[in-house]
């Protein structure tokens, strides 16, 4: 337990010392919120399903998708592949540290980072734009953890498949950036033409956005069975595959 905590703390510090990682997971979504918040304000707008929801209210849960996506598709594959490539994992392997402890500490760290990013985002929304929240915090937290774990498993899978850190970075970006714009995470799906909206249904991140937005506005879980099913499916398949394919060297 002491080992787990110590490693978790160390990993967290190391993550925050990487300026790029810090920017993408913690600052970028908040900067987007400030930009669009100042352009559109947070007055209720009819395009959000006719509810009294403003741009900021809709964006905060959607941007959760950006936070989870950057950590899972860029942070995890790049960090893991470069630790493997440079021999950091080898160095850990030559100690009594159990691999499962290392992975649990890392996953907890990435959860912590994403939660921190979300906290900054919510506080900014609340303090600057008077963000409205209609759901239950517990539901949001549960949905957030499910989404993050599902995507993290996928991130570790990418890390195992990518031969080098450089290719991990390329693959991660190729998957993340189109998905950010086409899933409703980066901008409302309503702004996309019909054909592209079709595409969004095949993107996993779309389901994170749907789940988070739904719970944010207090939709019942049973109306959200599809996103939950998709994310649970990704979580199980991703974990099984990642556990099989994970390489220390």
């Amino acid at each position, binding site marked *: 337990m002491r*080992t787990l905590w110590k490693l978790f703390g160390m990993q967290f510090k*190391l993550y925050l010392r990487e300026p790029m990682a810090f920017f993408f997971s913690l600052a970028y979504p908040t900067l987007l919120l400030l930009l669009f918040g100042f352009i559109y304000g947070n007055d209720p707008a009819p395009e959000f399903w006719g509810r009294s929801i403003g741009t900021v209210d809709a964006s905060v849960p959607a941007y959760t998708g950006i936070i989870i996506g950057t950590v899972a598709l860029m942070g995890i594959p790049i960090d893991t592949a470069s630790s493997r490539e440079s*021999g*950091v994992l080898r*160095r850990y392997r*030559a100690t*009594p540290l159990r691999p499962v402890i290392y992975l649990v500490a890392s996953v907890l760290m990435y959860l912590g980072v994403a939660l921190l990013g979300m906290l900054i985002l919510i506080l900014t929304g609340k303090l600057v734009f008077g963000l409205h929240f209609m759901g239950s915090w517990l539901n949001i937290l549960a949905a957030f953890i499910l989404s993050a774990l599902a995507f993290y498993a996928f991130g570790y899978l990418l890390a195992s498949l990518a031969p080098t850190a450089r290719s991990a970075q390329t693959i991660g970006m190729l998957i993340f950036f189109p998905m950010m714009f086409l899933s409703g995470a980066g901008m409302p799906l309503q702004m996309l033409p019909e054909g592209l909206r079709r595409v969004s249904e095949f993107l996993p991140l779309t389901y994170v956005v749907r789940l988070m937005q739904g719970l944010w506005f207090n939709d019942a879980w049973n109306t959200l069975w599809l996103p939950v099913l998709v994310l649970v499916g990704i979580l199980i398949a991703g974990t099984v595959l990642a556990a099989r394919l994970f390489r220390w060297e």
Partner: protein
Amino acid sequence: MQEQDVITVEGLRKSYGPVKAVDGVTFQVRRGEIFGMVGPNGSGKTTTIECIEGLRRSDEGRLQVLGLDPQKDYYALRERTGVQLQSANLPPRMRVEEALDLFSVFYRHSTDYRPLLKELGLEEKRRTFFSQLSGGQKQRLFVALALVNRPEIVFLDELTTGLDPQARRATWDLVREIRERGTTVFLTTHFMDEAERLCDRVLILDHGRVIALDTPQNLVSQLGMGMRISFQLNGHIPSTGKGNTNKQTKPVFNTALFGVLDGVRRVEQQDDEIVIYGQGEGLIGAVIRTLEAEGVPFHDLRSEQANLEDAFLSLTGHEMRD
């Protein structure tokens, strides 16, 4: 197997595809010694040491380290041994002190790492990021990490590769200090002088096989190479007969002049250079007296003790290649 043996290797084999990296290696390491494995790059040193450490699975052979099986008792072995790997790293932005603090938590029994910082001369670098350390400092940090659990055996793979001569010497002192604490040291190197000066016993590995295993002194003296005396001939030389030196441009030299001296084993000539291998205290004197008595003009006379490098050359028939 003797009681004081801490490592036993019997018939170790490991292939990578068609390449036999380690081809039937057998030896023992005794408690408290500095044991060196030398050989050119690609001779199978790293594969052998990694099989012993448990980091690599062998194809065949019996391995025992501190009475443990390196594969089956992997974690028990980790607790009791320390490993410095040839190609390893730490996260670039991990500080020296943080690394030691973190790694000591991994072990059930670990020492206070602060004295290690001092012993390894890293105290001033405590707050420095790993990526900002010099090559020598990184190596010392890796040695420190290999010692945090007060190991019974420490494995050092190519510890001084890439270090400048000064840092290498400092590292040798460090290795001797580690042994003074009662830790058995198992190291690999491709520097012959390092093995000769540092190790109690040296195993010479070539093409995955053990060529020789003994103390450096014995390896050199068993080969009967002893001393190497060399000098250069000056232009024209009296040879055995009289009067036939007039038109010689190339010096012809009667090596038999020296072959009859006491203790001489071999005489070689290569162009103007004569090399005499032999043993015995009066050998240099006898060579010089002979040269003067015969009136042979010479220069650049020097004598050296044959070393492990010579022994390696003679045992393997080729030089260490880098």
